[in-house]
């Protein structure tokens, strides 16, 4: 809890979830863990708010879910990326790169400018 935390820009959580689930079917808790690992604790969301996002993606048919036996011996809900979800993720990733590159350019240029 010592590292400074940032708020996630709008829509980024969805993209991160898609990316994580894209590596293989996962249940909610695992997704939360991976999110924390990958972002090295920089990005922190209350774990609960993961679920509305998951359900929203499921609603838009970017993810599908099925109940499977998990390591705890109980059924857990596993999310998997759909073909539509993969295409969407590609597109969003590209546009993210374009956007951050553009923003980075502007920020760098602004610093180089003599005031």
């Amino acid at each position, binding site marked *: 809890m010592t590292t400074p935390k940032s708020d996630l820009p709008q829509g980024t959580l969805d993209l991160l979830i898609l990316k994580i689930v894209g590596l293989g079917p996962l*249940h*909610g*808790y695992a997704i*939360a863990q991976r999110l924390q690992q990958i972002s090295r604790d920089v990005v922190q969301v*209350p*774990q*609960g*708010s993961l*679920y*509305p996002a998951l*359900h*929203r993606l499921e*609603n838009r048919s970017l993810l599908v879910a099925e*109940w499977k036996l998990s390591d*705890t011996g*109980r*059924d*857990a*809900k596993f999310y998997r990326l759909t073909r539509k979800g993969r295409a969407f993720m590609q597109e969003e990733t590209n546009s993210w790169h374009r956007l951050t590159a553009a923003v980075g350019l502007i920020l760098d240029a602004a610093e180089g400018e003599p005031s």
Partner: protein
Amino acid sequence: MTWLGRLLRRDRVERQLDAELRDHLERLTNDYRRSGLSEREARRRARLEFGGLEQVKEECRDVRGTRWLDEIVQDLRYGFRLLRQSPAFTFVAVASLALGIGANSAIFALVDGVLLKSLPVREPQRLILLDDGSWTNPIWEQVRARQLEISDGAAAWNDVRFDLARAGATEFVEGLWTSGSFFDVLGVPAVLGRTFTVADDNRGGGPDGPVAVISYAFWQRRFGGEASVIGQTLTLDRTPFTIVGVTPPSFLGPSQGRSFDVAVPLGTQAIVRGPGHWLDDRSTWVLEIMARLKPGQTVELATSALRSVQPQIREATLPDGWPQPMLDQYLKEGLTFVGAAAGPSGFRTRYQQPLWIIMAVVAIVLLIACANIANLMLARAATRRHELTLRLALGASRFRIARQLLVESLLLASLGGVLGLLFARWGSWIIVRQLSTPRSTVVLDLTLDWRVVGFTALVAVVTALLFGVAPALRMRRVDPNDALKEQGRTFVGEGRHSIGTWLLGAQVALTLVLVVGAGLFVRTFGKLATLDIGLDKDAVLVVDVDLSQTSVDPEARHALYERVRAAAAAVPGVAGAGLSLITPVSGAGWNGPVELKDRPEVPTRERMTFLNSATPGWFATYGSRLRAGRDFDARDVDGAPAVAVANQTFIRRYVKGDPLGQIVRFERGPEGVQPVQIVGVVQDAAYRSVRDPIPPVLYLPLLQAHTKGPGRLNLSVRAASGSPVLLTRSVAAAISQVDPDLSLTFRPLAAFVDGALVRERLLAMLSGFFGGLALLLAGIGLYGMTSYSVNRRRAEIGIRMALGAHSSSVVALMFRRIAWPVGLGLVIGAALSYWASRYVTTLLYNLDARDPATFFGAAVFLCAVSAVAAWLPARRAARIDPARVLREA
């Protein structure tokens, strides 16, 4: 999963959501525990990190997109529970809605069936009708010869009653004479067999001889729906017909309000009626002529096509024996087509206005019911205010609360609508039965189609909005803070200008309109029913004698008449009998202009007299007394001097001085001007209808100067005592002894008189019923309002009484409460009634639509009802025990 699927599997979705989130929490807790935290601490941290379980669930539900539906389901459940909790309120509300909505649906079903529905035929909007009146068969034959120049085909028909009996007493069915093209032009196929061809319509029958097409209903009723009916023989007016086809169940005939059993081609009339047929008669105006527009043709184009051949049609069909001016008029008068998608119908013309009036009446009844329920809801909203404001304070949106109230209204209205639909089926059936008279059975297609159901649903929704909006709007103005402080002790509906007062005033106003209307119609009916028509309607049996099948020579007819009359008069229990050409109050008439020597300038129209021919004893049979001179007797036969008996109106209008012995001249159709000597004056009696003022009538001896015997005569039989209907059997036996080929139809005179008042009776009955219903509803409204006010002011009244107020002053206090809405309502209602009176003027008899006595009476009656409604709860207020109230406070 679609949103609908999610909604239907709501419980499973909820369970899975719960399981998923708990699984997450559990894993999180386990991880913390494994990292060495205590059980309690692990749980606390997990919950902290996860966030509120219920909040997360709510957010997930939001994502689902079925939230609004979920909430409505919740609202519905809640609404149901509330309605179950207050059964009295629910009963009153649902019952008054069922009555109100049901009445609207019932009347709408009639309006739909009579006024709106098209004929169930192919492209009914292309059907047109030769306008205004009936036409002769020669005219039809001329139109038929040119039908394709004018349109896409034309058809003609005439309503008739056929006698199915092979001999003796009649068994009537509703029949149609139709042209061969009739079913093809209308576009009505046969469900079994075939319809007519043009060849079937040949004079004397087509290649298959005389053929008949029967209706589906008749097929079911008489032949049990057997397919073997095709080829069977049906005897119509003693002539055998071969059945060749059956029409679809939806087709009741070309005229609304009337159904048919059997249709036969016009041409077969030459066989059925023999020389008595009217196929070549140029003065028998009985046919309706319909045509079908060519594709793209308008009614105007069809009319101008018809006008271009009109001279040939008119020239070829000049009626015989008409005076020249009438012939000129005949040639000149333009023929016109009108649209006829709904078919022609005298019934529709007669009932159009009454139906719209009753439709307006039931709409007003529903409005009154709505006002009642709105008031009830307002009162309930007041007692529920605490609950609702608590919900507001807990974060429910105002919209959500208002919606909750609307959902409850819709729930009530739907319950009322469903019950109302049942009530409507029954109600419209009763009304149609009321419309039927002994002479014409009214048949309407009143099946509950989508239009009636749709109308009911629409009415229910509009109703719910009407009474649901007021409380919902009030709710929006409440500040939750204030309301919570008040602890549910405040009330609505107070003060002069509250919604409740206005609703009550509107109710009283609308009720007054209905009561005034009911008063007018009931008084009209009363006046007509007790009218002195100068005929003993309860003593006379009217026998329609059909002479078309008799073998007696036209020359020997007069002797036959006398034998028939004598045979009927000799039956035990018969006090007298007479024959006449025209049956009184049957709607039939015969008239001609009288020559006024001293005033030749008076136009024909103003010197008409009605005529009738009668035998000796006919006046006495109807109880009409002679004022002067003598009745016809054995002297007045062929070759004797022409004589007449005139009624009092005739004498007053056309004769100066002592009428007896004077000669009057009148035009008698083809026979020209005829002089007759007045030998008697008879008291005035109704001639054609009960409603018309009594016209001048000249009676001629039936046994004098009738070259061609009439096809039908009226035999009137007077019963010595008791009901004349009891004479039917013995009179029938006596006459069939004279000539078994005469076919007879028996009806008491009273049936004619009552039949003439069907419309007035219906209007009186319905307006009376709904006026009463409106009064009851308004009474309930006033009662509820006062009662509510008493409950609310219990404490105040208790204190007043403790301080010495007398119980009468408490009653007065409660009465003052309703004086304002009732007074306001009466003033507005009187103004409304005055305005609306213009729409009923033509339906009243001898009564001004702004009759002050009716207005005043209605207002007094309404005041009395209001007083009773207010007095019941006011009395309760006066009995309040001040000690108890003060202790409670």
